[in-house]
């Protein structure tokens, strides 16, 4: 049987991380919606939600209550099982990816705890592969929703989304493999630690290209502007979730924001040094007193804050794109993936492998 110490060990390494992660996920799921509305509104010279609470701060709570109270309508001709399961698959897969991601190095919270606790739920040795696997299984949620609704707009949206996710998974995987080559590990914590000297985004010549590839395919994977064809409202009503209402519709929204968070976290971890602080040229200018002082100040900020800062930078970037760019045409979307991104990602991988072999990376 478990003794007290072992139980305490499980509480510290499993119970508390899971609870904190769940709180983080739920808070983000509701409040990113408000952030998106506010960012879009201010970019378009509006104010956005203002009436519920101070500057609309209570709006997400009102929205969630509305989602919960609304009737959950299942169309008569829909396939009930598949229709009800689809949003869960999307959501569970997004949650699964977040379990694997490390949110910082082990910490004792400035001496508050007797020993260091990890800031992750599970530190898998092949973590990055699991994130890829979960994101590819998430596609099923979209296809199932589209098919089960028994509505041609939903089906079209589901098909588009599936085709898009499959096409953009390939350049995404290749850019991730490039990072794996550069760091020599599939473990996300090791990938961050491999960037102590320089972030992979500035690891010339392959780093910036791989970053660009990952970002492009990440945006396409999450079906966001300018790749939001699966939910193109002018052509497909709302795409694969046209027939959904109430809390199941809310779950699709949550899953979309979760996927954005996963892609942004991975981009920060793989290319922007994860929880490593920004340092101003420590090797060349680091000995000059004012710069050294600034570097010390920057390094004093807790690692997790750095990671979250990078995460929300990417989230803001997503919203910025949405306010700025028009949507691609469907044939453009496919040719970008297969004719531009795929050859580019193969070339990047080849160059990276060659450089690794020569010992230049």
């Amino acid at each position, binding site marked *: 049987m478990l003794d007290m110490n072992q139980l305490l060990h499980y509480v510290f390494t499993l119970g508390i991380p899971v609870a904190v992660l769940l709180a983080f996920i739920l808070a983000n799921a509701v409040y990113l919606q408000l952030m998106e509305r506010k960012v879009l509104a201010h970019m378009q010279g509006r104010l956005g939600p203002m009436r519920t609470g101070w500057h609309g701060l209570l709006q997400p709570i009102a929205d969630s209550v509305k989602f919960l109270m609304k009737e959950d309508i299942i169309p008569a001709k829909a396939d009930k099982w598949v229709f009800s399961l689809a949003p869960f698959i999307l959501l569970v897969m997004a949650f699964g990816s977040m379990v694997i991601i490390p949110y910082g190095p082990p910490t004792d919270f400035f001496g508050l705890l007797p020993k260091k606790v990890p800031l992750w739920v599970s530190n898998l040795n092949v973590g990055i592969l699991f994130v890829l*696997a979960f994101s590819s299984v998430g596609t099923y949620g979209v296809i199932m929703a589209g098919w089960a609704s028994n509505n041609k707009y939903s089906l079209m949206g589901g098909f588009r989304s599936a085709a898009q996710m499959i096409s953009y998974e390939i350049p995404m995987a290749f850019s991730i493999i490039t990072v794996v080559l550069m760091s020599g590990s599939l473990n996300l914590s090791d990938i961050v630690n491999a960037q102590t000297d320089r972030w992979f985004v500035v690891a010339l010549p392959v780093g910036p290209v791989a970053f660009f590839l990952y970002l492009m395919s990440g945006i396409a994977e999450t079906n966001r502007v300018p790749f939001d064809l699966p939910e193109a409202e002018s052509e497909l009503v709302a795409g694969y979730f046209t027939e959904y209402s109430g809390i199941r519709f809310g779950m699709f929204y949550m899953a979309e924001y979760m996927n954005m968070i996963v892609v942004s976290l991975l981009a920060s971890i793989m290319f922007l040094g994860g929880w490593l602080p920004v340092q101003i040229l420590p090797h060349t200018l680091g000995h000059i007193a004012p710069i050294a002082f600034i570097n010390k100040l920057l390094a004093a900020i807790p690692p997790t804050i750095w990671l979250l800062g990078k995460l929300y930078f990417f989230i803001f970037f997503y919203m910025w794109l949405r306010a700025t760019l028009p949507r691609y045409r469907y044939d453009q979307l496919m040719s970008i993936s297969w004719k531009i991104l795929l050859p580019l990602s193969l070339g990047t991988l080849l160059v990276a492998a060659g450089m690794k072999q020569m010992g230049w990376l």
Partner: protein
Amino acid sequence: MVNQVIFFYFAVVILASAILTITQKNPIHSVMFMLLLFFHIAGVFVLLNAEFLAAVQLIVYAGAILILYLFVVMLLNVDRESTAARANRFWPWMAGFGALIAAEVILLIARGTFPSEAGQQPMRLAGSGVKELGELLYQKYLVPFEVASIILLVGLVGAVMLAKKRASD
């Protein structure tokens, strides 16, 4: 003990979903049960400390192959497929061959020796096994590995050739 309980959960779900996959009338439901099957096989790999295989199982089978099945199945007319006859006049032949293959599998399992009990963890590698796997595949078994990839390439080219429009069409 805990491992064994988890193993039996996986085993039961694998068997149940495999049977449901071939007994469903609706092809889409079959694909869904197959997805469940692949997930639980990945779970067994995790239980065996083969995390890499589990991830690859999900990426290759669930993420790539099964999605293509789903695409093809969705393009079919599901209403017609679900009422179509389950077997044609060759069914005794099919049943016979099926029984033969099943007998062979059962014989092989009965004759095989297993290094450990079901639900135990036999592999205790230092890392995730990726390094060991890479060394085996790319050094010791490099030639068979490359032959396998050429066979896959031939299949790919063949599919493109079959689907290509001829100039006369």
